[in-house]
């Protein structure tokens, strides 16, 4: 029996549905409570606004979608009722009980399939008017701007030998068999308790034990009888739960199987990423609805839905019911309803000679349902023989349908398994698994509990076995042959009826409940030429709604096949894609409030304390300015300043072939770089496009220390690794030390005097001239010191281990106090470097800039052996420059916006990339791309500023210290 038995008296809770109070038992679903309260219209359909009631009770159909506590589009059949919950119906006006938009249902004649493609576009201005109207009535739930962001989410990463998906009979047996074979197993099940559909089909659960007794006598199909045992469901669940090698994840759905058996699992507000060596799909089936007239009326239910209401939500079905069926399930549910007090008007069995019978219930054999009567709820059922005549009407409040299943096989499809529709079982079955994936149970069309259990055991053993000797693609799979054989044996007593659509020419026979697509719509679409199943889907919108085809895929394919005169197998299926069930964005995003990492340098706290205005540089926080750009500028030019450059990318290269590698990566020369020297370099791609710049210091024969720009640190790391990956024979060992070193740039005429106080090393220009690289102690810390000058002054770039970054930073500021040193930020640095015409890759260059045109022709050494971009650069040099990056001065006192255009005779000539007021010049300076013929010293260019043309003069020389004497002092 279900596990609810034996628990304490359920306490009563209260929630709100569309403004009135509804009582629920604790543990009951919202839908169950509404059913018990007699609220049978819970939603309105997407297009025609027809009343809709509960159907599947398993979270698969679209019928019970409501807004719960402000969250739109919640399926209330799988949502437990909670005290004080506010549930509202959707897509209805003024209310779900009385919806004026139901007028569309009466107007359906004017809205045939795809009608919107054929209307509303003439004259052209009409479409925007219509569209406004459409956008007012489209969609389901309403989002609430004040609500939705407060959820707490989290993520978990797990690993397992075998993942078993589905906690029904097949899954439980698979898990146990695999675990007993000595591997670790993770069992994922979507329900709160194990047992699969047996949870709501107690008769079936009990039948296992009796069947077991029967089976033990004649077990011809069992290859090794001793290996397989059937035990009762409760014993099975207990053994699985207690097994030390099995982890059970309940109330969790596997929404995707991604490459490499990487499973995405949603468990409430948590996402679990599970990497499994082997995956067993034991996801079972869901029941499919029959297509007949008014089949969407409240009161029409799936048998399993009715069972869930009966056994899990303890509801009743007062009044009369008609059960339509073609299988044993229909008889079981009829008996269960009868036992719960429902009067069964009749069982309508599609089959002429069913093996089942029901005592005391009128049974119509060879019959089916033609239509449901009623306007807001079922009041009767019209039935007829399969030929369609003669019809008779049975009075009833409920129509319960048990006419077959759709296998939950999307994870198999997602992972690339091959399936084929098999008419003998009326279901797609696997004909080839991908390696490391298995399927078991009803998804293999094994609906008999004993078959499902044995199939599960087989799959569990096979999965455990293949951990020892992996199966190869294309290898014969014994499990498939096994399943096929077992299916064959069951044929006689369960030939499926392949009954999808009842015979009648009625118009309101709904195939797709999400989108209100009828049988007629599908046939019309095919007649118009949309005969391919995928095209049909996109045109008719069948299976495009919230249920993604779970309710309608089987029937739509069957109708498509019939109408095209093809078989179901020929018709094919639409592609299965994740997520298997709708998946909240919050679950995918996880817990982070700040969705991007924040990176802070070791000196960050100091900057903040000093009142720096911090800004984003990629993920980094960097000081923009401390107090005044002018003062910081002046300190650097007159005395000394220090800037935190810890964000630079830093790479250490060691090995005998590093020189060869550098020669290959950079357009300039490194073979002649002596130990103790540093050199500027740019990196180009194959097309000769400038990607990044930085410095390369040679600290030893085989040891180099490189820097990249902040923004390109990761890209250059990848770039190096990409090129190294193809050269395994080269002795180059690469370490990304970006985070390991803090760095600061001490610059200004007094910087040598500042640094001298912190080191014993000889800093004189003879020993440590411009472009020297040395390793020495700074403030007691081992440091790499590079004498370079981005800002155009005597300067030192000092790299120290991160943990000493703050110490050295503070030591420098302390040592510099007597020289009135100042920290400086990016804004000052930008002016300082602009005065030197030093470009910033990515700002002053773009995806078309090569170093020749970017004013760095000296850096390209075309007489070198091959290097990345050499051919392109050689060609570019041959054809001459087309555009050039130049410095310019404005005579007018304005600072144009960056990206202002350079125009030549009204046409686009180029653009400004950097611009600012230069204290050294006493006016506006900048860098701009201009046509090569204007790139001459003294040439005038025209810059568009607020619609006005402003002249500027091109200048070849740097704007500050053109000879570089300060740099080299």
């Amino acid at each position, binding site marked *: 029996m279900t596990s609810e038995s034996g628990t304490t008296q359920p306490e009563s809770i209260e929630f709100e549905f569309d403004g009135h109070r509804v009582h629920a038992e604790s543990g009951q679903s919202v839908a169950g409570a509404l059913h018990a309260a007699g609220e049978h219209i819970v939603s309105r359909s997407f297009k025609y606004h027809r009343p809709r009631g509960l159907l599947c009770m398993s979270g698969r159909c679209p019928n019970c979608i409501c807004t719960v506590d402000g969250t739109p589009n919640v399926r209330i059949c799988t949502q437990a009722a909670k005290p004080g919950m506010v549930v509202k119906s959707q897509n209805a006006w003024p209310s779900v009980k009385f919806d004026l938009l139901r007028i569309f249902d009466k107007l359906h004649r004017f809205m045939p399939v795809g009608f919107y493609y054929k209307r509303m576009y003439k004259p052209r201005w009409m*479409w925007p008017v219509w569209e406004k109207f459409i956008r007012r009535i*489209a969609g389901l739930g309403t989002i609430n701007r004040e609500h939705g962001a407060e959820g707490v989410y989290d993520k978990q990463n797990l690993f397992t030998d075998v993942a078993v998906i589905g906690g029904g009979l097949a899954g439980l047996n698979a898990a146990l068999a695999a675990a007993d074979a000595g591997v670790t197993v993770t069992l994922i099940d979507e329900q709160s308790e194990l047992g699969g559909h047996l949870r709501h089909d107690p008769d079936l659960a009990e039948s296992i034990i009796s069947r077991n007794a029967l089976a033990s006598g004649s077990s011809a199909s069992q290859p090794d009888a001793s290996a397989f045992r059937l035990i009762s469901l409760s014993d099975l669940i207990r053994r699985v739960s207690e097994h030390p090698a099995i982890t059970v994840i309940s109330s969790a759905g596997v929404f995707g199987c991604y490459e490499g058996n990487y499973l995405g699992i949603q468990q409430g507000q948590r996402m679990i990423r599970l990497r499994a060596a082997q995956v067993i799909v034991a996801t079972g089936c869901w029941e499919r609805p029959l297509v007949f007239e008014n089949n969407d009326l409240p009161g029409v239910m799936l048998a399993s839905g009715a069972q869930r209401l009966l056994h899990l939500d303890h509801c009743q079905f007062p009044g009369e019911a008609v059960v339509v069926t073609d299988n044993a399930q229909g008889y079981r549910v009829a008996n269960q309803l009868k036992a719960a007090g429902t009067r069964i008007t009749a069982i309508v069995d599609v089959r002429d000679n069913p093996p089942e019978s029901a005592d005391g219930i009128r049974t119509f054999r060879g019959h089916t349902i033609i239509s449901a009567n009623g306007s807001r709820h079922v009041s009767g059922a019209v039935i007829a023989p399969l030929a369609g005549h003669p019809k008779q009407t049975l009075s009833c409040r409920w129509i319960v349908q048990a006419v077959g299943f759709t296998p939950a096989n999307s994870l198999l499809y997602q992972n690339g398994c091959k399936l084929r529709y098999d008419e003998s079982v009326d279901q797609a079955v696997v004909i080839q698994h991908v390696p490391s994936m298995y399927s078991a149970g009803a998804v293999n069309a094994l609906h008999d509990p004993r078959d499902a259990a044995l199939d599960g055991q087989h799959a569990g053993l096979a999965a455990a076995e293949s951990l020892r000797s992996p199966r190869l693609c294309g290898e014969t799979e014994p499990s498939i042959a096994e399943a096929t054989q077992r299916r064959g044996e069951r044929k006689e007593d369960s030939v499926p009826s392949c009954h999808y659509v009842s015979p009648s020419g009625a118009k309101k026979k709904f195939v797709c409940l999400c989108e209100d697509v009828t049988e007629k719509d599908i046939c019309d679409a095919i007649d118009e030429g949309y005969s391919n199943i995928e095209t049909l889907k996109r045109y008719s919108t069948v299976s495009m709604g919230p249920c993604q085809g779970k309710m309608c895929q089987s029937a739509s394919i069957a109708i498509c096949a019939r109408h095209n005169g093809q078989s179901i197998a020929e018709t094919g299926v639409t592609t299965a894609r994740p997520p298997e069930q709708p998946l909240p*964005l919050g679950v995918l995003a996880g817990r982070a409030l700040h969705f991007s990492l924040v990176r802070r340098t070791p000196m960050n706290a100091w900057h903040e304390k000093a009142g720096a205005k911090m800004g984003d540089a990629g993920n980094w926080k960097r000081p923009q300015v401390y107090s005044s750009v002018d003062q910081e500028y002046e300190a650097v030019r007159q005395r000394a300043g220090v800037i935190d450059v810890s964000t630079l990318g830093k790479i250490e290269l060691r090995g005998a072939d590093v020189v060869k590698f550098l020669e290959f990566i950079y357009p300039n020369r490194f073979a002649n770089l002596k130990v103790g020297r540093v050199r500027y370099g740019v990196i180009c791609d194959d097309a000769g496009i400038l990607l990044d710049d930085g410095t390369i210091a040679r600290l030893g024969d085989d040891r180099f220390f490189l820097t990249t720009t902040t923004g390109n640190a990761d890209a250059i790391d990848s770039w190096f690794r990409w090129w190294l990956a193809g050269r395994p024979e080269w002795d180059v060992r690469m370490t990304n030390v970006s985070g390991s070193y803090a760095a600061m740039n001490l610059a200004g005429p007094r910087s040598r005097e500042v640094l001298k106080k912190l080191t014993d090393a000889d800093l004189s220009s003879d020993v440590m001239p411009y472009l020297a690289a040395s390793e020495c102690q700074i403030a007691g810390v081992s440091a790499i010191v590079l004498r370079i000058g981005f800002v155009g002054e005597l300067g030192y770039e000092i790299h120290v281990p991160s943990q000493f970054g703050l110490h050295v930073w503070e030591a420098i500021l302390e040592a510099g106090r007597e020289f009135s040193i100042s920290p400086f930020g990016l804004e000052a640095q930008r002016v300082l470097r602009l005065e030197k015409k030093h470009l910033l890759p990515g700002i002053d260059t773009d995806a078309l800039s090569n170093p020749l045109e970017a004013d760095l022709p000296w850096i390209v050494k075309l007489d070198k052996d091959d290097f990345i971009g050499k051919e392109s650069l050689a060609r570019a040099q041959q054809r001459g420059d087309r555009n050039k990056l130049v410095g310019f001065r404005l005579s007018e006192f304005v600072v144009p916006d960056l990206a202002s255009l350079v125009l030549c005779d009204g046409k686009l000539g180029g653009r400004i990339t950097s611009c600012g007021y230069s204290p050294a010049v006493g006016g506006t300076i900048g860098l701009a791309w201009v046509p090569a013929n204007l790139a001459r010293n003294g040439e005038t260019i025209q810059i568009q500023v607020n619609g006005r043309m402003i002249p500027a003069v091109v200048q070849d020389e740097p704007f500050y210290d053109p000879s570089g004497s300060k740099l080299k002092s």
Partner: protein
Amino acid sequence: MTTQRMWREHELQDQYDVVIIGGGVHGLATAYYLTQLGVRNIAVLEAKYVGFGGSGRNTAIVRSNYRTPEGIAFYDLSVKLYEQLAADLEFNVMFSQHGHLTLAHNEKGVTGLTERANTNQLMGVNSRIIFPEEIQRIVPDLNVFGHSRFPIQAALYHPPGGIIRHDAVVWAFARGVDRGGGHVHQKTEVTGIEVQNGQVEAVVTNRGRIKTKTVLNATAGYAGLISKMVGLEIPIETHPLQAAVTEPLKPFLNSVIVSSTLHVYVSQTDRGELVLGAEVDDHASYSLRGTLSFLEGAATHLLELFPHLANVKILRQWAGLCDMTPDYSPIMGGTPDVKGFLMTVGWGTYGFKAGPASGFLMAELIASGKTPPKLEPFALTRFYEDRLVGEKAAASVSH
């Protein structure tokens, strides 16, 4: 009401004046405009069904606020053709011009957008920089002033941009071809192209051989394979591009929102679904499977823009193939090496929005034998002559 078929099935003729490989928007548009120019003995060959490839997988954004004068002129023509497409083809392709916003979250972003706005305006395209207050007015649900890791600083606002019903465009063009006398052959796969003395002579398919002097390669994902059939190497790398769609919600978002800093873009269809995507996958691949990391990234970034959508559910994710060229611009036109072999390929992530313009101009090229000026910058030879088009800089998430 009698049912009219959208397109008819035909026997494969053994000769066509023009054979177009690929039944997506580019192939069908070219065929349609050819019939308009009186070239009617033509066939479109589609290996699967019309709209199987990129035309059915893209996110249907149409805009012309590109970066370079070449790109802007080209896409401006496309927007204008799209505006009249419903009337031309008598099929409502539902072009919703509700505006397109590209967000900038840092100074570099603002600069890049400013440059585009300036160049757009110079070329007569309606596009301008707007700032947070106006952004909030246009998109009330957007997190402009709330907490954010990278607050929105400005946006490039392009009012004529918007979304279109992409399948409808494909079907309408297919019907137009059919009505104009051309043949649309589905389930017809090209297996070879015969070339003699540097001239195309025939196309070989799984349904038979077709004699023809003119072949247009209008494929994506397989563009390199088709070109190799005539011995031509083209500089294309194929990357998957992924997208996802949510359940339907009452429409609240009219504009297309793109953020390259956050690697995400989103729009809301007339059915109420949110369509979201990101940039192409890092690594070249032909996989159409889709990844979990894409979903996680797209969701994370979308929630930074719209935090209150955390409970909104994804219904479906998918992937398409994008043929990327080195300069993120297409290759259109012929090649001096093989006469009669033309291509409109390398459409990366910007193919659908170009369909009508590419079709219109390719048809003109085929019918007249002369390259229209708007096509010149996109010739294959630009890669040999170092005349790349500078769209890459503006392209990272360029939907």
